[in-house]
């Protein structure tokens, strides 16, 4: 059953499109932070939305999951809320629940029986390199481990689409590259679609099939759409050496700089 959020009549996205954002405008009362943004996420594709701070990237994601009411525009999806996973910069694990119970919570809230959820949680924690850490509380885990627990919480629910809001920003370089590598491998294996919000151009290009560029806010708009032809399966580190990477990076950087400079001049 297609679901739609926003101000216009619900419409189904295209055949293989899981999420379609159309002409989304978001305002927090005054001037819109984001204006007429449109993008699509296809089945099994990894899409990134990049832009400078204040361009409304996170607001767009919040609108997609219903935490932010858009001023106008629609969010159309063929997925149920249970089929959409969220991974944010802040892992937002419940501090009074162990790693295992945090994963279990995501499953039991989805209707799974607790015994089965416990087994499933252990499987995912093990798969993400956290075997033996299930009884630990988030405070007693490192940043990378907490991020993996949050990832286990999301993946255990077997989502078809994961929305990520700068999920790796708080991690140090080594942990970050390891977590990213694991995320890419799991997403590629499972055919999960991803909509990633980031201000890191390298991250966007090495991970994504499509990248949308937002201009500087307020009234930020999606100004460019790039297809990234780096073959899959990908190694996020080695992807930087792919011949397609450097020219795309330069183009993206130039477009982003132009968008920021243009706004600065206008101001």
């Amino acid at each position, binding site marked *: 059953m297609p679901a739609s959020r926003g101000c216009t009549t619900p419409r189904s996205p295209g055949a293989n499109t899981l999420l379609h954002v159309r002409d989304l405008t978001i305002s927090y009362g005054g001037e819109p932070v984001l204006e007429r943004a449109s993008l699509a996420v296809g089945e099994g594709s990894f899409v990134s939305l990049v832009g400078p701070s204040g361009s409304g990237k996170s607001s767009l994601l919040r609108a997609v999951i219903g*935490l932010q009411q858009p001023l106008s525009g629609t969010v159309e999806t063929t997925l149920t809320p249970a089929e959409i996973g969220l991974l*944010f910069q802040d892992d937002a694990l419940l501090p009074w629940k162990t790693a295992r119970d945090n994963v279990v919570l995501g499953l039991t809230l989805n209707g799974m029986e607790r015994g089965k959820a416990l087994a499933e949680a252990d499987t995912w924690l093990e798969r993400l390199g956290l075997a033996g850490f299930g009884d630990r509380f988030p405070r007693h885990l490192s940043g990378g481990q907490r991020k993996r627990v949050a990832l286990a919480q999301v993946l255990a629910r077997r989502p078809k689409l994961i929305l990520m809001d700068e999920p790796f920003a708080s991690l140090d370089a080594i942990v970050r590259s390891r977590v990213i590598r694991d995320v890419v491998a799991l997403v590629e294996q499972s055919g999960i679609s991803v909509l990633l919000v980031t201000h890191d151009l390298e991250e966007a290009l090495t991970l994504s099939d499509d990248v949308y560029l937002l201009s500087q806010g307020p009234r930020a708009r999606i100004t460019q759409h790039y297809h990234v032809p780096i073959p899959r399966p990908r190694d996020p580190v080695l992807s930087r050496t792919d011949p397609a990477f450097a020219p795309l990076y330069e183009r993206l950087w130039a477009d982003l700089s132009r968008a920021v400079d243009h706004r600065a001049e206008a101001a």
Partner: protein
Amino acid sequence: MLDPRYAWLRRLIALGLVLAMWEAAGRAGWLNPLFAPSPSKVWVALVDLFADGRIWPHLEATFSAALGGLALGIVVGVLLGVAAALIPLVAELLEPVMSVLNAIPRVILAPLFVIWLGIGIASKIALSFILVAVLIFFTVFTGIRQVDRKLVERVATLGGNRLALVRHVYLPSVTAWVLGNLKVAVGFAFTGACVGEFVAATHGPGYLLSFAQSTYNAALMFALILLILVVVMLIFVIAGRLERHLLRWN
């Protein structure tokens, strides 16, 4: 360089030295026993209290009043705090009253409770209750309003309804805040019970203190102060352990 492992031993020796000097000064006649009886006299008074067993009904009276006030204060404080945090009208009506009660030294209500409830245990429970309830009310009220929005959004986006939010976010948060203030609440509860006894009572260390004061029995006063100190410290240790166990995630 001082070895931190033996800090307790150094403190014990220092305390022993102070007590020895105090005792020596008392025996030498440098201290007036009417104001500062020697430690041995205090000890005798303390042993005396237990020897004939007359202290037990007094301790029982204080414990009953303090624990009764503590339990009632926590329950009512939590309920009112939750109601005020969730229902704006309740907050509008309750906040000014609670702010006034919080601003004044609430022990001044003791004589009023005696008039209303008599000199029995009820007036002591009431004083302990009012001291604890106001503390817990503000703990819960401000706590719920400052609950981490990310956790609320997290549970909501995992499919949690209002009941799930209460169970998995608000209730553990409230428990954490209450437990975090448990030691203070215990101290308040015993303060209420003892002050209530001091004002008007027939039982309790507070009543005995008042009696010792009126008879200029300084040794009994010191013994009672020491007794209350030890009892409250013991309860602090138990409350601290409970807090550490229940908040082991923190």
